[in-house]
Structures are given as structure tokens and as C-alpha cells.
């Protein structure tokens, strides 16, 4: 039964991170584009889809937020309490970022000078980076020893310092670039060859950064990848190669390369999420109280209902939209 929770956690976390990756990348692209002046179809599509993508990312994030409370309750709650007010600041940061994304879509902002336009999406991006940093910090602190917790509390520390936080952030930011490149490739209309190549380069660079971050993370701890995590590492490597090949071919204009890159990125996200969970499971104790929880069949039924209703809504729109 416990494995069901872990599988669900990995899948929902990967979906959440994919959407978060798109949000970070799209906000960054829109900001850079605004700084350069003018506009392009990728920046337009980014601004257009960002509010929905953030809403979807937050909605998708609720599921892993619930599941980590089930699986690692005491650790997660302790880390949340220790980071205290600093951790809670993610809520106003997200609200502010959310409204800025809606603001960035308005015609009024589109008419602003470039620095002011860049400030809108740039501030939202800064808010999201703060949230990303804080969640990684929480994850790291939750996995720390009770001695670390007690010292953190005694010292009234607002920040948990751990070198792996930056390394993890580098991995996720690299993956974010890849997620954005593929997502924008599907969503943007009328993309020029120059922008297409630009997106492919962003995706490829993201993969390089993510791989470098992962290497740094692994080099810091000889016990970093437990045996149980090896299959996921292999799958991640396969995803990385597929995504990289896809981006290279997309850059060269090969047909269907974008689909290959997308598949590789999705595989990579799921594998990295699984690897992350395998490391955690390897290092910390399980909660023994998961057996016998009621309601799982109902949840499965509602997953099916939700999927059917969402597909039905999509078909309703696609058949009727003028």
C-alpha cells in the first residue's frame, strides 16, 4: 500500500515540476524579450499561457503536498515550522507573481517601455525563484537530523544553509529550461526559424546545466545514489539522451524532433522525481501507519471521473469554438 503513495507522489510531483518548469522558463523568456525590446511569438505565447500554467502548476502541486504529509509527516511539518515566517512568505510571493502574470497580458502593459515591461515579468520570476528555493530548502531541512533541527530552532535561523540546495536548484532550473522549450514549441504560433533554433538551444543548454548540477550533487556525497535508485538513474540518462537528440534535431529542422524532445523531457522529469524519492526513502524512516486508510477506491474512481470530464470539456471546446 505504501508503494501506491510513493508512485502517486512521484507522478504528481513530476507533473507539478513540469508545469513549474514551464512557468519559470516562460517568465524568463518574456523578461529577456522585454529587456531587448519588441516582441516575438514565443514571448507572446509565454505571456498568454503563463497564468493558466501557474494555476495548473499550483493545482498539480496540491497533490504532492498532500502526499508528503502522509508519507513524511513529522519531518515535513518540522521543517515547515522551523522555516516559519520565511516559509510562509511563499504565499504572498505566489499571489503577487500570479497577479503580475495577469498584468503582463494586458494591452496597457504591452504599451509600456521595455524596462517597465521587463519589471513586471521579472518580478514575477523573482517571486517564483524564491518559492522554488524555499521548497528545496524545506525538502533539505526535512531530511536533516534532529540535531540540525534543534540547532536551527535554538539559533532562530531564518535560512537553512546546505550546499545541496543550490545544486538541486541548478538541476531543476536546467530542467525548467528544457520543459519551457518543449512547451513553448507546442504553444507558440508562427514561430520564426530563428526563434525555433533559439528554443532548441535553450532546451539543450538546460539539459547541460541540469546534468552539471546533478554531477555536482552526486560528487558531494559518495552514497548519493543508493542501489534502489540506479534503475531511475538509467531511465533519467535515457531521457536525457532522447531529449538532447530531440533538441539537436529540432535545431536542425528535422520533422517530429520536437515530439522526441518532449518525450525525453517528460521521461527525464519522471525519472528525476523517482530518483529524488528513492534517495529520500533510502535515507529516512517510513511512517508505519499507512495501512488501512479508507477511501482509496473512491479516489481512483474520482481520478477516472476527473479525466473523463476534462477530456469531455476539451472536446466540447474543440468542437464548438469559433
Amino acid at each position: 500500500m505504501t508503494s501506491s503513495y510513493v508512485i502517486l507522489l512521484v507522478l504528481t510531483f513530476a507533473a507539478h515540476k513540469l508545469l513549474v518548469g514551464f512557468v519559470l522558463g516562460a517568465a524568463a523568456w518574456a523578461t529577456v524579450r522585454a529587456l531587448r525590446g519588441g516582441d516575438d511569438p514565443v514571448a507572446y505565447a509565454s505571456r498568454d499561457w503563463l497564468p493558466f500554467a501557474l494555476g495548473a502548476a499550483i493545482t498539480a502541486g496540491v497533490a504532492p503536498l498532500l502526499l508528503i504529509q502522509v508519507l513524511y509527516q513529522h519531518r515535513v511539518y518540522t521543517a515547515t515550522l522551523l522555516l516559519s515566517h520565511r516559509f510562509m512568505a511563499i504565499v504572498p510571493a505566489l499571489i503577487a507573481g500570479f497577479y503580475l502574470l495577469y498584468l503582463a497580458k494586458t494591452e496597457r502593459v504591452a504599451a509600456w517601455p521595455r524596462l517597465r515591461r521587463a519589471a513586471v515579468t521579472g518580478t514575477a520570476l523573482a517571486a517564483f525563484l524564491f518559492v522554488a528555493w524555499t521548497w528545496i530548502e524545506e525538502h533539505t531541512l526535512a531530511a536533516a537530523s534532529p540535531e540540525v533541527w534543534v540547532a536551527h530552532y535554538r539559533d532562530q535561523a531564518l535560512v537553512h544553509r546546505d550546499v545541496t540546495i543550490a545544486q538541486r536548484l541548478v538541476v531543476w532550473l536546467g530542467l525548467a529550461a528544457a520543459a519551457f522549450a518543449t512547451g513553448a514549441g507546442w504553444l507558440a504560433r508562427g514561430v520564426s526559424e530563428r526563434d525555433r533554433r533559439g528554443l532548441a538551444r535553450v532546451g539543450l543548454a538546460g539539459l547541460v546545466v541540469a546534468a552539471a548540477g546533478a554531477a555536482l550533487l552526486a560528487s558531494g556525497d559518495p552514497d548519493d545514489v543508493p542501489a534502489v535508485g540506479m534503475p531511475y538513474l538509467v531511465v533519467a540518462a535515457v531521457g536525457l539522451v532522447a531529449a538532447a537528440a530531440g533538441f539537436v534535431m529540432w535545431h536542425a529542422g528535422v520533422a517530429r524532433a520536437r515530439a522526441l524532445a518532449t518525450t525525453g523531457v517528460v521521461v527525464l522529469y519522471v525519472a528525476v522525481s523517482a530518483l529524488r524519492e528513492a534517495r529520500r526513502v533510502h535515507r529516512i524512516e517510513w511512517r508505519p501507519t499507512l495501512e488501512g486508510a479508507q477511501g482509496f477506491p473512491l479516489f481512483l474512481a474520482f481520478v477516472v471521473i476527473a479525466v473523463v470530464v476534462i477530456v469531455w470539456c476539451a472536446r466540447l471546446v474543440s468542437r464548438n469554438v469559433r
Partner: protein
Amino acid sequence: MDPTAYPVNDFGPAMRGMVIGAVGILHVFLAQFAIGGGFVLTYVQWLAGRGVPDTRRFLDSFFKYLVLISFVTGAMTGVAMWLTTIQVGPRTIGLMVDEFHWIWAVEWCCFTVEIVAGYMFLRFGARLPDSARLKLLATYSVASFGSLFWVNGILSWQLTPGAWIGGGDVWAGFFNPSFWPSLLYRAAVSSTLGALAAIAVVNTMDIDRAARHALIARVSRLLVPMAAMPLLGVWFMAVIPADSRAWITGGSVAMSMFLAMAAGASLLIGAYALVGILWRRLYVSGATAALLLALAFGATAAGEFVREGARKPYTIRQVLFSNAITPGEVARMRRDGSVTGDPYPLRDAARYPTPQLVLGAHVVRVQCSACHTMSGANGLVHLGGGWTPDQLRLNIAKLQRTKAFMPPFAGPATEVEAVAQLIAWEAAGAPDTWPVSDDPAVLAQIQRWLDEAGTQPAPERPEARREVRP
């Protein structure tokens, strides 16, 4: 580490209950607005399909407000509720998650459908025919009501866990005694909030007054469920525990006042809606609608305050006290102490001149800080600073008899004396020196009081009330 040991944060002059209250009230108001907004949208879209003028313009205008308020701040305060509950009561939310996580996961499915349907309407609504728009909005509305349905079962379980207490059956806890009155009451509130917000939005539309009046008359029909609220309120009051009912209807002046405020504000809105808007067909200006919404916010705030307060001395009735100590742990803590297993040190220990005062401050942090500060909101110094030493000792030792909504004191006589000395020291202006109180006769007397009070909460011990009768 003890899995029940958590670090405790200090929120300055605000007690922890105020923090969750502030976030909770805002979230409940916005979430109920989102649900009522769904009702309004679906109904008005149905009218639009029948060719009622200006309805489509209203829908596009209203939906923007709904998205900007509900989809952003409403959704984010929902996440904030979880995080804030962890901040103020990790054991409480932990137990709720342990028992109901699949129910919460079901609610997440509903929420996901709500968001997807809503965003599809936002993005493609203007380019869809009326029939497709109605289907999307109805989906949004049903899904948002589904969210309320599932969350309501978990929240109402806290006050009336029902047959769950006997065997831990989740469904017995979910469909608890206050489930239906609570659900229907919240549905009526949602419909009211949606209608009032709709009236405010109609006033922002660039159409003539007669057309606005006609639209207001139509959306006002969603105020009709308010007529059932008094009955639903009585139903809710009838099914909650007798001690909770007594507590909010006279047992506590503050709670009774908040109940009166909630009922009074609702009555005012209801009277104006039913008599003024629906019967006399008065025109409602934007300012009046905003005022009615503000009144509704006040009613929501007072109502949520009463709902939270009615659970005292528990956060989960019969299972977990307000200070996150279980009834079963009280007896052990009476023997072993309440702070001996706490690995987290007192951050400001250097402030206190004696180890006894340090112990007192530690005990206050573990047992009292969920609802009290030292000298801020609900401050211990304000409550007991003027009492004599023996009065302090007696009232703390017999806490659940001092006030029936307090949990029993969960520590030995030395901890009672430490807390009494701490309050006296704070009331004296926190001097640099303070005598240590360790008279064996005093401690023996405190122990007798503790034994007399027992380890059970007051409502559980009817014999305790009989004892004081002549």
C-alpha cells in the same frame, strides 16, 4: 525523536489561533464566493441561452472578477490554510491528513476539474455558443460544489466526529451529525455571496439603469436560499454537543456575542434581500451591494470564529485538546512532566532569573501558547496577574473546572507552581531577581488539587459538577 514533538513558533502579541483565524476567514469567504459565483454564472448563462438581454456581457464581466479573486487569492489562501494549520497545530492537521487523505485527494480531483473548466471558459468562452458555455459553467459549478462537499465532511468531523469515535470508520466520521446542516448552510451562504457580488458587478456595467435593474432582479433570485438559513442554523445547533451549544449561547460572553453578530448580520442581509430586493424590487446600488458584502464578510468571520471556538477544549473532539495533547497523554504528563520530552530549548531562557521560571515559560509554550500569549492577545498576565498565589495555583491545577472549555493541566505540581510563579513574575514587571518557590507543603497542596481535578476534561465528568452541589 518523539514524533509528537514539534518546534513552537512565537507570533508576538497575536496568539496562534488568531493567525489561523485570519487566514481561514479570508479563505472561507473567497472559497464560498467561488462556489456561489459558479451558481450565478450557470444561472445567468441559462438565461443568456433564452435570449435575456445583457446577460452575456454580465457573464464576461463577472467571470473576470471571479478569476482574478477566486482563482488567484482564493486558491492560494487554500494552500495557505494547509501551511498555516501546520504552523499553529501540526498534530491536528496531521491527524486530519492521516484519517482523511483519500477524501482530500478526491476533493483535489474536484478542484482540478473546477480549475480546468474555469480556465477553458476564460480562454474560449467568448468564442463558444451558449449551449457549450452552459455546459462548461455547469461543470465548473458542480466541481466547485464538490470541493465544498468533501472538505465540509472533514471540517465538520472536528466538532462532531460521531460514530468515528467508536471504531475509526472514515465514513462514519465523514457523514457526521453536523455534515448536512453545515453543508446546506454553507451552500446558502455561497449562493448569497455570489448573488451580492453579482449585484455589485452589474453596477459596474455600462448599460442604462433600467437594464441594470432588470439584471439585478434576476441575479437576486439566488438570494432566496437565505430564507432557509435560520432553520439550518437551528439544525446545526441541535446536533452539536450540548456543552458546545451551552458555551456559545451564554457560557462564554465573547462567543455568544460573535454568534449574535453572525446571526444579526445574516438577518440584516436576509431581511434586506428578501423584503427589499426580492419583494419590493428595490434598486441596489454598487455601494449598497458592497456594504452588504462587507456585512456578509463580517457574518462569515463571526460564524467561523464561533465554529472554531465551539470545539473547545478540543481541536478534534474527544481526541486532541486545543494544545495538541491527547486525553490519554495527560495522565502520563502528570507523572513525567509536559516538557521533559521536548527536544527544543527555550529560546529566551537567559531572560528568566531562575530555573523555575524557565520551566514555567517552557510549560506555557507547550501547554498554553496555542490560545494564550504572556501579555498580548488573551494574555496570561491579563487573566491571572491579579490573582493571589494560591488562587493562581488552584485555578491552574483545576484548569478544566476553572473554565470548562479549558483542557486539564497536563503536568505535575512542580510545573503548576512554575507557571504560577512565571505569571506572578511577569505581572510584577519581570524583576531581575525572584525567589524560588519550592515549599513541600505548597507542592503537596497543588498535588491534592490536581488529583481532585483528575485528568479528564470537564464535560466528560458529570460527577464533577455533581460534587459542587449542596
